[in-house]
């Protein structure tokens, strides 16, 4: 089962969603200002984490880490 909810449901509330849909194969979270082209996700491995390497915030004193998909 694929579940799509707004990411603005803060991460502390996610365990409640996991419990509510305990038979789900996995959980896909999408912010409401993001378009999901679901037809391009069919080949993805549903037993693995999917995430982006998009880092939104940067500060000159911190070298941010772009490791998520490296």
């Amino acid at each position: 089962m694929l579940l799509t909810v707004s990411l603005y449901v803060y991460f502390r509330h996610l365990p409640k969603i996991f419990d509510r849909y305990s038979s789900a194969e996995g959980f896909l979270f999408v912010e409401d200002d993001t378009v999901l082209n679901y037809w391009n996700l069919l080949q993805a491995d549903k037993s693995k984490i999917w995430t982006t390497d998009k880092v939104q915030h940067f500060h000159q004193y911190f070298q941010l880490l772009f490791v998520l998909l490296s």
Partner: protein
Amino acid sequence: MKPTGNSDWFSVQAELVKKTVSTMPAHFQVNYKDATKNNHETLTVCSSEVFYVPKRLVTDFIDLVDLVGDMDLHYKVAVPMFFLSMDSPQNFDPVLGSMVYKRKSASFNTSSSLYSAKAPAVHPWSISSEQDFIKLVQQMAEGDPLLMELV
């Protein structure tokens, strides 16, 4: 989220990550430290507009949320910390790596030129009218022709 350039905010978040990691069970710590071994002094911030958690890692995710507890850790810091603790980045599926991504800006408007049906996801996007919605669905129909039946 505090404005970009707020060093205090980054310092506090980095400290909270350090504190959380120190309380993690050993297997989480091993994963996290291995993933960040060459970047001890950095803070991982991922915009997390879209992500997927497989069922096999749901229990780990819940355990990590419990570890954070009431700490004021922002989800754009917490979620990547969870992922790096749960599994090695080498095991992540790269499907979202080619998403279309553009930073939001004051001048941002709905732009049909940003959209691509070939990408797994497109960010940002906003719909302000029925016309916008119809236009988007028509563009998406390149990927899923059945969508044309909606408009």
